[in-house]
Every structure is written in C-alpha cells, then in structure tokens.
C-alpha cells in the first residue's frame, strides 16, 4: 500500500514505524527537516520537507498514486485542507485526518464528501481518554478493548498469588467461573505468547487475555479479583487535553481531583469542569498530595506531557498510599522499565491510537485492530464475506480454517449475539470474527483469509 503521512510528530512517527514493518511504501511529510532526518535514518521510508497542505508538496510525495493519506500534523486546519487538496487534485481514495477540536468534531456534516472530504476522523486524545476511562471502569484490568462497537470486550489481567487464577489449569477455572461465557485467548508469560488449551496452568505474573460479551466482563472481573473494590476517588495529574477530557467524562460518577501546575490552565480547567476539584500545584509535591488525601485515592493518573514527570509523580503517589497508579508514557523503553514495577499500568498513547489507524491499512474487511503488549501481538476484528467457494472462512468450522501459527479465533459476533469460538463453530457470512495474532509477521496471512475471491462481485 502506498501511504502518505503528513506530520512527523509523535503520532505520525509511531504510525510510520508500525506501517513500515508491514510492507508499505511510506512517505512522511513535515516542515521540519531535522525531525525527518532522524526518522529517515532509522526507518525505510521516504521523507519530503514542506508544508503538508500545499499541492506541490503533496504531488512530490506521490499523492497521484497514493492509496491513503494520513494527515496527523499539529493543526486541525492543515489536516483538513490537506485532505481537501488530496481529494480535489489527486483523487486519493482514503483520507484520514486527525481532528482534535470538539467544535469540528461535533459537526460531522463538515466532513461530508462535498464539503471537506475526510473519510476517517481520528482524535488521539479522545482515544487515549476512552482507553483510560475503560481501565478505571474495570478495576483490575490492565487493558480493556472493545470489539463490534463494544458488544464484545477483551480484558487483560495479571495473575497474582492471591487471586483464584494461579496454579490452576484452564479446565479447573471453568468450574470456578460457572455461568459466564468467556474464553482465554492468549497468555503472555514474560514476553512469550502462549496460545492456551485446557491443560495450560497459569503461573504468577502471567498476563491473561479474556474475551467475553460485554455484559459478562464486569462479573468476570469481580469473580477473579475478589479484593478489587470499585473505584470511587480519582486523582488526575495534568490538566492538559487528555487530563481535562478524562475529568470531564468521569466527574459525574467519580470523585475527581485534577492537579495542574500552570495557574492559567488550572483556571481554565476549573471553568470547564463542573464537579471536579481543580488544584493548582505540582503533582510531585508530597505535601500537596498528602493534604489532598492521596492515601485514600483509588486511582492516580499522571497524564502530563512529560514522561519523566508522570513516572516520578505516580511513583510518589504509590508510595504515599494511592491504591492504583497509572502513568501516561510515550517512550516504549520507559514502559517496559516501569510497568508492573511500582507503576500499576503504563499507558502508551501510541498503543491506544495505532489500532484505529491500522484497521484502515489492512486488506480484507478489517474493522478494528488493537495492539497488544505494545504491538508485539494484535487483536483483529474482521468481517467474513462471500460464500463457501469465494471465501476461505465462510461456512467452515473453525478447526477446518487454515490459520497461521500462533493465531487463534477468540469469538464471533453474529448480529447482537457474541459466540465464544469452539472447534466446531461454523462461521457464517457477515460474522465479525475476532482473532488474536501472537506474531505480527502472520498478519498478512490473516488478511488474506478474509479477502474474498474474484468470483464474489
């Protein structure tokens, strides 16, 4: 696929890095040559220096025969105009733009074909906010992922000595968790993926991925993590875009406190929020944290722009007695460093956003892609089309499908129903199939499975 990425910022770079590995021709456009220099040295891609929305720059980047344009510069306006130019001058088929401003997002008719032709809007801040919000709503989970508009969900848990999971085989577990339809799709032991069967025995510190229908997830979590009480009080450090959005979406149901060091930003946050207590101060100020009852806080989320500040403040919060701490960490190296140490959950914004982009890059009818373990594995939701002769999956039992190694089918969403995948389950046309690919190099094979043969037209 020929893809043009506009903007070599955090999102642009990490998307480029992810896509390069998948046999795509990437062209990265930015107006800062220094940033491009660095990236072109590390990855196999083309870079163009220039203003992203200018027709000449787009032409140089190969917009004429590009399959997709991905506008993720810092400016909403540049992104929109770039899509407009690409559509009008170069007829680029797929145009994705990052739009942050709610003013635009709330009026989606702006982005109609005849107005500002943008096919897909992504708002990374919103995705990260949603991601954190799901984690807070599901105490105990390391990751909560939605499939088929939330009908099915996947949660990642860490097995601990005190829980019911450790040193049980999956078959035993079925007796404990009766009445719940679920499936354990993959287990990570250290960095090793294990596709489990009935005899697999869970060890401490295993990361276990459950898939289930949304209605069972909470019950499932409760049974497994008996000790986890629902969260009530949340403290957020950082009143930037993500912190503010998160506070806004949580403040009606939780007791939320927001820490912001910049007085002007704190003032703005206080005007925008209704029930949140906005505090003006440093998140790493021990006295302030103690004064604000950090020891009775259920979740502390460090969401500032600086990785280091997030790590330090959440470590401090943990030591002062916060029940659970989360930190927003951009650098992948840091994530491995701190996760499961003092910091309970390291949130990687790339991981939260990349999935929504990957879905559009994939061949076949792929609706959702979620990166697991920072991209080491993927959970894919694909729609099966065609019939027995044109498709490689439709009208076949799961055991008869030629899945690449390390790949399993977790569940199938058929209409409103969520079916756990069994050996003999037969896939029908228009089913949403949720697959786990434990090794990324097999993704292409999975895509091929869901491509419809020539006969289907």
């Amino acid at each position, binding site marked *: 696929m020929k893809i043009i990425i506009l903007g070599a910022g955090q999102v642009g770079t990490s998307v480029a890095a992810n896509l390069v590995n998948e046999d795509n021709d990437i062209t990265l456009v930015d107006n800062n040559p220094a940033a491009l220099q660095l990236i072109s040295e590390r990855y196999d891609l083309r870079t163009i220096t220039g203003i992203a929305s200018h027709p000449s720059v787009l032409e140089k980047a190969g917009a004429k025969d590009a399959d997709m344009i991905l506008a993720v510069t810092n400016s909403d306006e540049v992104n929109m105009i770039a899509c407009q130019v690409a559509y009008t001058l170069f007829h680029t088929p797929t145009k994705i733009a990052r739009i942050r401003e709610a003013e635009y997002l709330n009026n989606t008719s702006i982005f109609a074909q005849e107005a500002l032709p943008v096919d897909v809007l992504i708002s990374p801040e919103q995705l990260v906010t949603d991601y954190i919000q799901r984690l807070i709503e599901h105490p105990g989970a390391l990751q909560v992922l939605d499939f088929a508009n939330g009908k099915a969900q996947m949660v990642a848990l860490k097995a601990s000595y005190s829980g019911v999971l450790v040193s049980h085989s999956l078959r035993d577990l079925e007796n404990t968790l009766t009445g719940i339809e679920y499936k354990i799709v993959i287990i990570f032991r250290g960095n090793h993926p294990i596709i489990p069967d009935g005899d697999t025995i869970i060890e401490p510190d295993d990361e276990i991925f459950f898939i289930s229908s949304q209605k069972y997830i909470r019950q499932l979590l409760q049974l497994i993590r008996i000790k986890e009480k629902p969260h009530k009080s949340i403290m957020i450090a950082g009143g930037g875009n993500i912190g503010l959005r998160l506070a806004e979406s949580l403040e009606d149901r939780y007791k939320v406190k927001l820490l912001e060091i910049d*007085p002007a930003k*704190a*003032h703005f*946050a*206080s*005007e925008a929020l*209704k029930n949140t*207590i*906005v*505090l*003006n*101060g440093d998140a790493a100020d021990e006295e*302030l944290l103690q*004064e*604000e009852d950090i020891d009775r806080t259920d979740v502390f989320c460090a969401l500032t722009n600086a990785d280091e500040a997030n790590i330090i403040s959440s470590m401090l919060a943990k030591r002062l007695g916060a029940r659970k701490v989360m930190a927003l960490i951009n650098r992948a190296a840091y994530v491995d460093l701190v996760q499961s140490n003092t910091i309970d959950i390291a949130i990687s914004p790339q991981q939260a956003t990349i999935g929504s982009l990957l879905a559009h890059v994939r061949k076949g009818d792929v609706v959702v892609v979620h990166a697991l373990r920072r991209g080491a594995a993927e959970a894919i939701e694909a729609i099966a089309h065609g019939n027995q002769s044109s498709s490689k999956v439709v009208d076949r039992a799961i055991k008869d499908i030629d899945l690449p190694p390390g790949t399993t089918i977790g569940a199938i969403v058929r209409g409103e129903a969520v079916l756990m995948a069994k050996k003999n389950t037969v896939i029908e046309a228009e089913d949403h199939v949720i697959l786990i690919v434990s090794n990324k190099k097999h993704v292409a094979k999975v895509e091929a499975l869901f491509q419809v043969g020539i006969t289907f037209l």
Partner: protein
Amino acid sequence: MQLAVIQRILGILLSLFSLTMIPPLLISIVTIDGTTIPFISAFALILSIGLVLWFPVRNVKNELRLRDGFVVVVLFWVGLGLAGSIPLILSNTPELSITDAIFESISGLTTTGATIIVGIDFLPKSILFYRHELQWLGGMGIIVLAVAILPMLGIGGMQLYRAETPGPVKDTKLTPRITETAKALWYIYLSMTIACALAYWFAGMSMFDAIAHSFSTVSIGGFSTHDASMGYFENGWIETVAICFMFLSGINFSLHFFSWKNTSITSYWHDAELRAYLSILFMICLACASYHVIVGDYASFGRALEDSIFHTVSIATTTGFTTTEYQNWPGFMPILLLFSSFIGACAGSTGGGIKVIRILLLFKQGIREIKRLIHPSAIFIIKVGNKPISERIIEAVWGFFATYIAMFAFLLLALMATELDQVTAFSALAACMNNLGPGLGKVSQHYADINDIAKWILCFAMLLGRLEIFTLLVLLTPTFWRR
C-alpha cells in the same frame, strides 16, 4: 454632566406624565365623584412645568452619556414621585398633607404598596384608579430600568446580564438599545396585564377591581382597592390568579422576552436564578405550612396551605397583598416572611429586595470559602448555570450587599430616633427598602400613624431600594459631580 440634555428629558417626561391624569379624570367625570377639578389642575400644572423645562432647551440634541444615566434614572423617580403627588394634594377626598401625598405617590411609583390612607374602600373611584395607575407606570419604568439600564450602568453585579439583555446592539450609549428593548418589554408587560385583568374578571372581580388589581399585581406593587386587600374578596380563584401572576411578574423579564421571541419555554428551565427563586419560594411555603400544622392555628390543612402559599409568594416577591393578618401568625413566621422580602424576586423583574441572583451568588461565594478551607490550593470558580462568573461581579455583589445592610442599619437607627418602636421601625424599613408594602407592628395595615420625619426617611428608603442603592448613592458623592 450635560444639564441641558437632562433638563430636556425631564421636561418631556413630565409633559408625558401629565397625560396619566386623563384616565382618572375621565373616571371622575363619569362617576361625578368631585375630583374632576384636582385632576384637571394637576394635568395643567404638570404639563406646564414640563413645557417650561423643555422649551428653552428643546433644540439640544446631544447624546446621553453613561454618567447622565444615573441622574436621569434618579430624576425619573424623584421627579415623577413629586409630580404624582399633586392630584393627591389638591383633592379633598382623601384629605392628605403634602408629606402624606408624596409618600403615597412615591410608594406607588416605586411599586412598594405602602399606603398612608385609611378607609380605602370609601375613596372616589378616580383616586383609586390613579393609585393603581401609578404602580403600573412605576412597574413599566422598573422593567426598563432593571433589564436595560442597570446592566449598562453595572450596578451591584448586574453587568452579569449585560451580554444577555435583549436588544439589537451592545452600545455604551443609552438610547438606541433602550427604545428597542423597552418596546418589546412593554408589549410583554402589557399583555401580562391584560391577561391578568381578564383572569381576575373571570375569577369573579368587578371590571374596575380586575383592572386595578391587575395593575398592582403585574407591577408587584400591592395596592388594593380595599382595606382588607385581597382578603376582601374571599375567593380562592382570585387568590390563585394573584399567586400565578405575582410569581410570573417576579421572573426576569428577559426570560419572558426570550421565550416570547423563540416561542419556547426552554429558556425558563435553563435559568439558574429562576430555579433558585422557585426553590426559595418552595422552602418558605413548606416551612410556613408545616409550622401551621404543628401549632394547629388553622382548622383545615387546605386553608393553611393556601394561605401559606399566597403570603409566601406575595411577600417574597415583595408584592404585599394579604388575605389574612399574617402579621399575627405564631412563632417565627411573620419575621421569616419579612426576611424573604430581602431576597425578593429575580433581577430584571418588577420585584424589589436584594434579588435572587445576588443571594445565589453570595450563597455560592460562601460555599466556596468553605471549600477553600478544605482544599487550600484548589481553584474554585463560581458558576451560574455552568457559566463562570467573573470576580469583578462577585465583588460588585458583595459591595451591594454590604451597602444594603449598612444603609439599612443607618436608616433603622434614624427611624428609631424618631421614636418609633423597634418592631415598627425594623419592619417599616424592611417593607419600604425592599419595596414590599405592609410591615409589622404599627405599620401592619397602613402608615398613617407614624410621624412625618419617619415618613420622609421611608420615602428615601423606597427610592433607595428601587434604584438599587448605588444609583442614588452615587449622586450623593462628590466624585460624581467633579468635572
């Protein structure tokens, strides 16, 4: 200061005001009640004063400035208050001294409803009508004052409404906006009056009583054509109509304007002040009704509830109608009702008092101080209806509140110096400054029994309350007059 412009405006105002003598004049001619001569001479006198003021400066057409606004507003009430007393002075029935006539006239124009007259039932129809007409005109003036002028002058935090006041342009000059705004507001005022009059008429009043009472209801005045006020009719329907229209008149007229313009009532529901107004009324009703039940001074619960609602709405909106002697209710209730008049009605209505929005802001400010003690480094912003309120407005409201209380204390001492007893002095001052009307003690029915100096002090208090204190006080400072 542009004295010529102000003089011209005052001249025009008085000439126009002389026309208000015509309706009572016609009534006196029809009913032959002997007040024809006083009204004719009052008409001639006021018209000629107006023309004399206007004629020499008729060609001065300078724009009014913001500072002139204060003078015009004060002169409007003082000037018309004095001019309005002329027919009452000239008339033989009732026989009123100059002080009494001015008190009655100012009480009417400020929509206070405190009366000096004993035996209202026996007054000539024309005089009765004239008193109600004064209140109705006063109410009109107040609406424009409260909705258009005070926000512009920024008195006591009322700049809060500046951005939201209806009208085509936001301008520092007074004229273009006010004429447009005033027109729309008067239509609403007029239609409410007509609706109210019809409702009273259907409920069983005579045509004359219906019109007269509609005037004093919509203007939140509280004059009645009977000594027993609304109690004279002993009619539940009339009381219900009165409750409804007193309540409606106590709502910010901008809200009426918006819902009229957009033909939807959503603007009512979203208004934080209106909600606070409703809940205050509800709580006071509840307190009164339950206390009546506990004490057991009413035979039937229904009657107790009805009286509680009527008097709560009447006193809290600062109308001042009564159906029974609430002054003699047991326990804390008379004082509670008197206190509720301090809160008053919504800003931008015909009601008096401190206004619900200011009380709401003060209350929120109080809560904020408590929260600040718990979270010293937190930033709390006072919001009304989810809109942040600037510190400047909060300061202005505090300033207003402090001055209100200080003026109250000062005038209370002055009244007590004229040898009024404490209950009478306190309640009379509260009733006048909040533009309520009836007080407790010696002034529970009428103000005839108090001395002349006290009457003058109360006149001042009525103007003070009506002009939101600062408009009047600003004229008394040397800084205002310095060039």
